[in-house]
């Protein structure tokens, strides 16, 4: 199923204004898209056009400007829903992926978890897939357990199945692609296990939806969370996709304008999905921008992006292995992993690595990557991480490798 035409990252880069050369500055080698992606002109323009042509509050104005604002906002929702095969009533805008997960934890969790109930997260979860459950568990008396990983950075499926059988697990929070290890988890298999044991499953798609075809019905999951700024979209917007019948049965979370059908002094009634979970003025321009990003990604093709990144990862593995002592975390097989590559160098702290490669304007991340439990499992406090996207090519990897070599010799002075 390799796509017919390859992506041409150099050509694409012309559509991302941040890569426009400035004077005789070294070109930007941006390898931190797992933290946030760069934005194409199509996205920035869609937002500017919204503000300049038709800015108004949505859903309630009867004048034409407000109609047009509402139409563009809801068209953004349609584009996003289409990208992941979701229904429009099951596609809720939040402020980021973290809020999407918190929405489930607070709305469903606070009202349904009981002392003794178990919430399962994984050792490779991002803090945003852990902390909301810890907070809600503290309020409700439920317990949070961590599914372990195996030596090669995969989830221990046998442990998960066993625990589902033996413990009163109510919900699983599983990351689709690890932002540290790059591991692509078999979430559809895990979803089947979960459902067989009466548990729900929330898939954290923050690192998968931007990078590979993700079809919500195929995942067989109950919820899918992802975030706009990692998928060519703006900051300030995220998405919770859910099964409408489950969302319908959930109590409201944030209260306010938009999410009501009636407000009385003695109580209130809620709006229909998806608005029931969108309190207050939504991120309107951001939804327009995210819609443009979703269209852009679909136009290029997620399968092509995935194929491109798979090649990029394979290339990077080869190139990085030429550096003495460099250790890469997570699965070796490029078929089993997404774009993020975490690594370490002996005697060189990740901070110093990232700082020194920035001398050549190579941007990589250093730290715990919001995955401290995983860091402890790996026996490190921090790693360096390079993560590519559709606008990166093998020259960027070469630039990284040469910057790493230079960092080495700098410290060996």
């Amino acid at each position, binding site marked *: 199923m390799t796509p017919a035409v390859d992506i041409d990252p150099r050509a694409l880069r012309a559509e991302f204004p941040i890569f426009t050369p400035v004077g005789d500055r070294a070109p930007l080698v941006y390898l931190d898209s797992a933290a946030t992606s760069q934005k194409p002109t199509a996205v920035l323009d869609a937002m500017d056009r919204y503000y300049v042509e038709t800015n108004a509050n949505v859903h309630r*104005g*009867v004048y034409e400007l407000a109609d047009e604002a509402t139409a563009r906002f809801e068209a953004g929702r349609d584009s996003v829903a289409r990208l992941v095969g979701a229904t429009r009533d099951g596609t809720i805008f939040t402020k980021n992926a973290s809020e999407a997960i918190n929405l489930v934890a607070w709305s469903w969790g606070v009202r349904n978890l009981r002392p003794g109930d178990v919430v399962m997260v994984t050792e490779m979860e991002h803090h945003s897939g852990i902390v909301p459950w810890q907070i809600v568990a503290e309020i409700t008396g439920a317990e949070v357990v961590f599914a372990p990983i195996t030596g090669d950075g995969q989830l221990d499926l046998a442990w998960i199945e066993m625990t589902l059988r033996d413990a009163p697990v109510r919900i699983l929070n599983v990351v689709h692609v690890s932002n540290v290890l790059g591991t692509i988890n078999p979430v559809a298999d895990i979803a089947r296990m979960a459902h067989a044991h009466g548990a729900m499953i929330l898939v954290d798609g923050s690192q998968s939806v931007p990078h590979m075809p993700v079809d919500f019905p195929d995942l067989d999951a109950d919820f899918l969370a992802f975030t706009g700024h990692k998928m060519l979209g703006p900051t300030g917007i995220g998405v919770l996709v859910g099964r409408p019948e489950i969302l319908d049965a959930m109590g409201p979370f944030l209260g306010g304008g938009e999410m009501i*059908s*009636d407000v009385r002094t003695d109580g209130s009634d809620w709006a229909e999905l998806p608005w029931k979970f969108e309190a207050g003025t939504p991120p309107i321009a951001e939804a327009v921008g995210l819609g443009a990003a979703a269209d852009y990604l679909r136009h290029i093709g997620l399968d092509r992006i995935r194929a491109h990144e798979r090649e990029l990862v394979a290339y990077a593995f080869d190139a990085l292995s030429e550096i003495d002592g460099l250790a890469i975390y997570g699965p070796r097989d490029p078929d089993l992993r997404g774009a993020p590559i975490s690594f370490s160098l002996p005697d060189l702290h990740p901070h110093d690595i990232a700082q020194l490669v920035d001398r050549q304007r190579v941007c990589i991340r250093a730290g715990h990557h919001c995955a401290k439990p995983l860091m402890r499992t790996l026996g490190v406090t921090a790693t360096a991480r390079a993560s590519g996207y559709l606008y990166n090519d093998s020259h960027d990897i070469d630039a990284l490798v040469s910057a790493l070599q230079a960092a080495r010799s700098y410290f060996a002075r």
Partner: protein
Amino acid sequence: MGGLDDLYQELILDHYRRPRHRGELADPTISVDQNNPLCGDQLHITVRLDGERIAELAHSGDGCSISQASASMMSDVVVGHTTDEALEMIEHFRQVMHREAQADEDRIGDAIALEGVNKYPVRIKCALLSWMALKDGLLTRQADRQEGR
């Protein structure tokens, strides 16, 4: 101005100024309330069935010209029909509002004049209010009967 004259056709203003079937039935088979979340307008519909036939229908409550005219037009057209026929009419009108069908006068009578509302997304809710209320009332009754209540 063409747009707005399309929205506020003479026929609509006529139904608004002189609503048909306005009021409340004394001993209704069906009684249903619907509220327009947009503006808070409240609509009350009462229906007297004769077997499966809508013998009488009355509407009351506040509303803008579109919602009032729509309730009047709907009342006109459904009275005398069976509940299943009425549900079909409602579905057709819903499709017209969502631009999924061309308005057919045989099925929705004067309400054909409301077709232009579908260019004003926010007002679609106003036009649909009475029709959705009636649908709600009819379906609830069918469900109740099936459960033998």
